[in-house]
Structure formats: structure tokens, C-alpha cells
């Protein structure tokens, strides 16, 4: 147990030491070390003998997988970023909003699979699945705001964060109680099995669906934010909620709208995610939620294009990183450490550039 005594004389001695920019030195050493580890790992992976190395096709698949995965993260990340932009709070329970959407879609997919509707008219059933998931996620998000966050609107910053963590566990365990603890298989229409060849590259049909849907959703969202009156008031509240309310904007309504939009996007992400992994369970929200939050922070939390960029980058990093860096060090089953990669990126971004890639960097201030 370390005891620290600090008489006046020792304090004076320490003063000189403290004047050295320790933090900067540590950070520089740390970044050089990390860079060296990454470069050496990548070099060693790429110079592996032919029979152990990943093939060109494998790398291409990693990239496509990363893009698809990353675009799902981007959708979830928008929920974090929109809420953070307006309330300056981390909605830790957003992953659970996503999970409820997935469950709602699952029950419909399950019924449609049994009745054969899923295979007979895949487009109609996908539209229904998306609608159901979006509405459910939106409902959960709005409810969450109303019950857990609104009473804390003016509380110190850590209070809503603790509430959000509590709400996250509460919702997760609620889903366990409601729907049961087991993982369930999510039915995929036969029309989405196999691959499509685009520009001479075979791509999984689901991944094509994911990319197209995400691009549409993102476009609609940016149109909504930039063109509509509600979008305008959202931007106004994000800039300064007090002034916005003086200008006649109903702040509470804008906040609810923000949560609702975050929920809608999470619902879309939930269907895409469940189709990709073909399963749902009550704890499926946690890891994608954290990954999406990381993506939002990576791109610059509060920035919408940042969420998109961060999502894609993180997706690529998750799919390429373990293969590219860890394989070089002979680490067994590198993809087990995929999530550790996410958290590592999260920690590094917050330490080195808390404002994110597209952010302003002011997040560092107390």
C-alpha cells in the first residue's frame, strides 16, 4: 500500500521534476512504441512464407467484411453522436435499443420463415422486418429518454452516465426475462444467400444489402438534418440549447426527436446485423454498442460525418487489424482479440485526440 508523505521540502524538490512535461514525454514514447509494434507486426505478416500467408482473396474479403461491418457501426454510432451533440451525454444504453430492434425483427422473421413468406417475397418481408425493428427501437429509445434521462436534465454530467449504465443492464436483463437467455437463429431469405458479382468481385449478397441500405439511410438522415425544419432546430439545440429555447424552439421535443431518430437508425442496423450473423440474443447489444461508440469517438463525437467515417475505419480495423498485426507475432486465434482492438482504439483516441478525427479537440478540457 503506497503511502505518500509530502512535507514542504520534498514538495519543493518534486516541483522541479514536475515541471518537465512528463505527460508529453510519456505520450510520445507510447505512440512511438505502438507505431513500432504495428509496423513490425504488419511487416512480419506480409513477409510470411507463401503457405502461411493470407491470400489476396482473403485480404479482399477482409476489406469487404470490414466495410459492411463498419457501415453497421456507423448507423449505431449516429445514435450516440446525435444524442451527445445535443445533450453532451453518453447514452450507454443505446446498444440495448439496438438489441430490442433485433428481437422484434427476429419474431417476425421467425414466423415468416415458418410460413414460407420470407422466401416467397423477400423484399416485402425485409421491408416489414425493417419497419418493425425501427419502430421498436424508436419506442425503446423514446421511453428510455422519458423515464431515465429527462429527470436528470440538469444534473452533473456523471449522474446521467451512471443512469445510462444502469439502464443498459436493466434493459438487457429485461430482454433476458422477456425472451429467454438462449441465442436464437435468425432466418435469412434464400434470395440473400450466395454472392453477387459486382465489377468482377464476388460479394456476399447480404453485404451488398448492408452497404446499399446504409448508404440510403445515411443520405436520408443528412437530408433530414440539413433540409427540414426539425433538422434545423436539432442543429440549433446542438449549438446552444439555451439560446435555441429563447428563439422559440421546444428543446424537450427536439431531444425526443433526436432519441427517436437514433432509435430508428439502430433498428435498421439491428436488422442488418442479425441478417449478417444470423442470430439474436439478449447480450448482442453490448459489444456492437461499444464498437459504435468507439466509432463515434474516433470520428469526432457530435459530428455526423465523423460517425460515418469512424464506423468504416473501425470496421476495417477490426477485420484487418488482427490478421495484419497479430498474425505477425504468432498470436494464436487473433480474431478472439478483435474486441480488444476496439477498446484499444477507443482508449488511444481518447488519450491522444479526444476530439476525434473530424472533431475540434476541445473535449480535452475539464
Amino acid at each position, binding site marked *: 500500500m503506497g503511502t505518500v508523505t509530502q512535507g514542504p521540502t520534498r514538495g519543493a524538490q518534486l516541483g522541479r521534476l514536475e515541471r518537465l512535461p512528463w505527460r508529453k514525454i510519456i505520450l510520445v514514447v507510447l505512440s512511438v512504441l505502438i507505431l513500432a509494434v504495428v509496423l513490425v507486426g504488419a511487416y512480419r505478416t506480409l513477409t510470411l512464407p507463401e503457405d502461411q500467408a493470407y491470400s489476396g482473396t482473403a485480404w479482399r474479403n477482409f476489406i469487404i467484411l470490414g466495410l459492411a461491418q463498419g457501415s453497421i457501426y456507423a448507423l449505431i454510432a449516429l445514435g450516440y453522436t446525435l444524442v451527445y451533440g445535443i445533450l453532451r451525454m453518453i447514452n450507454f444504453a443505446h446498444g440495448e435499443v439496438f438489441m430490442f430492434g433485433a428481437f422484434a425483427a427476429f419474431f417476425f422473421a421467425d414466423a415468416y420463415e415458418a410460413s414460407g413468406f420470407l422466401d416467397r417475397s423477400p423484399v416485402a418481408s425485409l421491408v416489414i422486418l425493417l419497419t418493425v425493428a425501427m419502430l421498436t427501437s424508436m419506442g425503446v429509445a423514446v421511453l428510455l429518454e422519458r423515464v431515465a434521462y429527462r429527470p436528470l436534465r440538469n444534473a452533473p454530467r456523471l449522474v446521467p452516465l451512471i443512469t445510462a449504465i444502469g439502464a443498459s443492464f436493466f434493459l438487457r436483463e429485461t430482454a433476458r426475462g422477456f425472451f429467454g437467455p438462449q441465442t436464437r437463429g435468425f432466418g435469412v431469405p434464400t434470395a440473400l444467400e450466395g454472392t453477387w458479382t459486382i465489377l468482377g468481385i464476388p460479394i456476399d449478397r447480404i453485404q451488398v444489402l448492408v452497404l446499399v441500405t446504409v448508404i440510403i439511410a445515411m443520405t436520408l438522415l443528412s437530408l433530414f438534418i440539413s433540409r427540414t425544419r426539425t433538422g434545423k432546430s436539432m442543429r440549433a439545440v446542438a449549438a446552444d440549447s439555451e439560446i435555441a429555447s429563447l428563439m422559440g424552439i421546444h428543446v424537450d421535443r427536439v431531444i425526443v426527436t433526436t432519441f427517436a431518430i437514433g432509435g430508428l437508425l439502430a433498428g435498421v442496423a439491428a436488422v442488418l446485423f442479425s441478417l449478417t450473423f444470423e442470430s439474436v440474443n439478449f447480450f448482442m447489444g453490448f459489444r456492437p454498442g461499444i464498437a459504435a461508440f468507439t466509432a463515434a469517438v474516433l470520428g469526432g463525437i457530435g459530428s455526423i460525418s465523423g460517425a460515418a467515417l469512424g464506423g468504416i475505419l473501425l470496421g476495417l480495423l477490426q477485420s484487418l487489424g488482427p490478421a495484419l498485426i497479430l498474425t505477425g507475432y504468432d498470436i494464436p*486465434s487473433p480474431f478472439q482479440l478483435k474486441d480488444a482492438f476496439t477498446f484499444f482504439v477507443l482508449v488511444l483516441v481518447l488519450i491522444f485526440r479526444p476530439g476525434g478525427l473530424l472533431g475540434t479537440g476541445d473535449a480535452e478540457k475539464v
Partner: protein
Amino acid sequence: MGIARRSVMRGGAFGGIAAIYIALVGLYTEFAELELVGEQITLGRVMLVAPALVAAYAVTRPRVVAGERRPVGFGAGVAGGALTGLVTGGVFAAAVWFAEWFGVDRIREVFIQVSEPLIAFLTFDQGVPAGLPILIGISILGGAVGGLARTAPAVARAPLAVGTIAVIAMAMLQRIIPIVFVELGFKADWLYSPVTRGLTWLGAALIFAVAAAANVLWHRSGEQTRERVRSTVQEAPAAKLGLLVAILAILAIMPLLLGTVISEVLGQVMIYVLLGIGLNIVVGYAGLLDLGYVAFFAFGAYTLGLFTGAFLNTTAGAAEPALSADLNFYVAIWIVALLAAGLGLLIGAPVLRLRGDYLAIVTLGLGEIVSIITASKWAQPLIGGPQGMRGVTKAEFAGLNFQDNPQHFYYLVLAFVLLALFISWRLAGSRIGRAWNAMREDEQVAEAMGVSTIRFKLLAFAMGGAIGSLGGALFAVSLGSLTPTSFELVVSITALAVVILGGLGSLPGVVVGALVLIGLPGLLREFEAYRLLVYGGALVAIMILRPQGLIPNVRRSRELHEEEVEQDAWAAGTTGDREAVAAVLPGGGLGVGREDIE
């Protein structure tokens, strides 16, 4: 004097929705068989009344009209409560009817808890239409009681409430108290029925009478007597010492009275008390929200294993870890604590400039990295990876076996808890504690007054880390084997819930928090599946209703004196409801400066 009809409808509807939620999440079915009093009053049935009761209690709260607090009258309270109960029961009964009409099996495809036994429980085995009036009637009764609890004259209210709470508490402790009675040589049959294990009607009536009478006597005794007793307990050194000795004596004989099964639960409680004390230094004293506390817990457990010569589990049998030593437990544990303090510095150094919520997320990330690596195959040669380790030392000492005998283990962990409590208590009042206080309340001002915030933050991380690692090390001793599933985010969240439920910065709070959150689920096995649900719900509820916790830190409550609170409530544009006032309390001083409240 009356209550608005809208308020009754709304409150009642919320009660109904709450009841439907409890049914769907499976709590009724889980607790349907847990008898509290006689055969009729089960925990499930108490929970059946609870939504109406709570809704009515909320609906009949005093209104604030034009800045004046107007309590609801007695008759109006009971009538309003009963009406609220009627709405709650109506909503719930309608849902049950719907379920029966729609088909229980079809609903079960989505909500797995909906079943014929559930319907039978809710309709008191009378089936749907016949049982529904009973359900509604019982809700009306619950609502009336809720209204009564709020509006009855204080003379009647206090003894009734105290008596009821005493009965429920004694009934919940049904796995402990009979054992103590038997151990002390008394018969317990008259109090606890050997058939249902719950209280007998006679026992419940006696407990109610004794508790209520004690309450009445206490209030009759006059203000002066009460004040004298209070000040003696709080101020006289002899009384304080006596109290301390009494608590220590109870702690010392508890495992002997309670037998091995409950001692095991107590050992777990004590481990979380230790974690709570450590986390309390970081979160409660220094105001740094650490969500990765499991890192220290895991570090303590695994390093202790390595230092005391534990083996790796592999598919081929036991194997020697890549690095290990064969030290005595009583040497190794101090090295573990020291190393953990170093780890605290290492984790703390790069993140300390970050603002509160970012710091929380970074520590969460670091904690998760630790648990992922612990469970990965990469860590196999060092700490066993997914298979884990076994053969952790039994820490044998003077014939005591701390691994196989939970009673002995309790004493080991109690010794460390007392040590940590002492250190923590002395720190809180010291120069260091005051520096932490200043830093938590306003970092910039503290810095300006010459408090080296970096140094004190690091110190908090090191102290918290060392104590957390002790918890991990003792956990390793108690189990003897380690698997990565014991070292997940849940540990951090549980420790946080313990600290927050008890009250940030409050040491008695940590003990109470651990007893409630770890002890109760340990005693009533039925709770086990709903532990995390309760933790999550508790975190939300406390933050909204009572951010200072169950047993608030005295200084902190003084800091939040009334005036300030009312001003904040006014500034927030709220009507001055108690709940709203509680909501704007500055979070029990969660380390955020006043200017953040805006």
C-alpha cells in the same frame, strides 16, 4: 384537498404497466412459492400488491400550489389510493384477460414467461373471468393502503410502517434467523414454520407488535429523552467505543452462529465490501468514475495465483505457468497489492487529463481489454487463458484452512476489510482526503489553491487499485481455481452499484450496499437470476430519486444544504416536487464542478 382525476388515471395506468412488466419478466412465477407469512402471503403476492401500493403512494403525494406545500387529506388519500388501485388492477386484469383470450401459448412464443401457471397465480387458481375480480380487489386494497401510508396521521403511520417493514425484513431473513435460534438453543418453530420456512402468523403478529410498540414508545418518550439518547450515541466516546466493540463482536461470532452455507455468502459479501471500499476511494473520495475496476480484481486474483504456485488448466492436464513463484500467501499478498498500486499508476497516468465521462469510458475500455485478454488463447501459457488456473494457495495458518472452510475464510477476509476500512477512514479525514474532496468539488479551484490534482488522482488510483487487488486475491483463495468468466464487466458494475447504493464517500454505506446487493441474492437463491436486473434498476432509481445513497456521507449532505437545492429546482423550472428536488441534487458531488449544472 382532492386529487385530480387525471393524476389518478395516470398513476393507476403506470401501476398497471408496472404489474404487466413484472409478470412478463418472470418475477411473479419466480417468487410465487416463496412464503413470507403463513401459506398465503408469498413474496409473489406481495409483489402483486406492490404496483398499486406504490402508484397510490405516488399519486397521493403533497401538491405544491403557488409555492405552498399542500398535503392530501386522510379521507381523500385513502379514496384516491383505492381509485388508483382500481385503475391499476383494471389495467392488469384486462391484460390477463387479453392473454387468456389471445392464447397463452401464442404469447409464449414471444414472451417466454407467460404460461398457464402464471395465469393461475394471477387469478388465485380461479381461472380467467372468475379470478379477475380478486385481482382487482387486491389492487384496490393495495391502493388504499398506499394512500393510507401517505396520508394517515403521523401517530398511526410510523408504527404501522415500522411494523410492516420489520415483518417483511424478518420474513426475508428466513434462511438466517431460524439457524441462529437453533444454534443459541431456542426453539424457532413458533416463529418460523418448518413447513413453509416463512414466518408463522403468530410470529408475524408478534414481530409486528414488538416493532410497532417500540416505535410508539420511542415517540412517546418525549423530545428531550430522544435527543439525549441520540447525542450519547453520536458523541460520547464511551458509547461510540461500546458500539464499535458490539459491532466487532457480532461480526466475529456471526459465522459460528450461521453455519457454513451462510458464511460462504458472508465471505462473498465481505469481498465486495473490500471492492467497494477501494472503489469508493476512487469514485467517492476523488470523484473519478472508474468503470474498469475489474482489471484490479483480475490482476489481484491471477498474480496471487502465480506467486503462490498455482497450475494452469490445459487439455493435457496441469501445467506450470511460464512465470511463477512459490511464495507464502502472507508474503505474496503484499507484493500483489504493491504491484496493483503500480498498475493503478500505470493506468491512471495517461488518462487523468480527461474529463469525467471520457475517463469513465477509457477505464471501461481498459477493463474490457483485461477481461478479453484474460480469456484469450494468447494468455494460455501465462495464466491459462480460457481454461484458467487451479491450485491457488489455501493460505493455511495455525490450522485454519481458508479455502475449504468458509467460516475460516470469513475471518481472513474480515481482517483485510477491517484494515481497509481503517486506512480508508483515516485517509478521508487526512490532508489527502481533504485534497480529494476539494478536487472532486472543483478541480480548477483546487489546482489554484495549490492541490496537485495529478498527484492526488494518481494516489487515488493506486490506493483503489491496491485494495481492489486484495479483493481479487482473497477471491482466488476462496475458490482455489480461476476461470476468466469470473472477471467480466459485471464485477465493475456490481462494485459500482454497491458504492452508489450505499452512498458515495460513505463507508457504512459500502457495507450496507454490499449486504443488500450481494447478501440478499445470496440468501434467497430465487433472486440469483434477477440480480443484474435489480442492480441496473437500482442504479437508475438511486440516481433519479436519491443520488446521495442510502447512508449519505455526512459532510456531503451538509454541503448540499436546502437553500441551494431549492434554487436549483427553481432554476430547472420544476414545480418543487420532492422527486424533482432530489433529481437536481448535485449528484452527491460526483466530481463535477458547480458550473456544470448551469
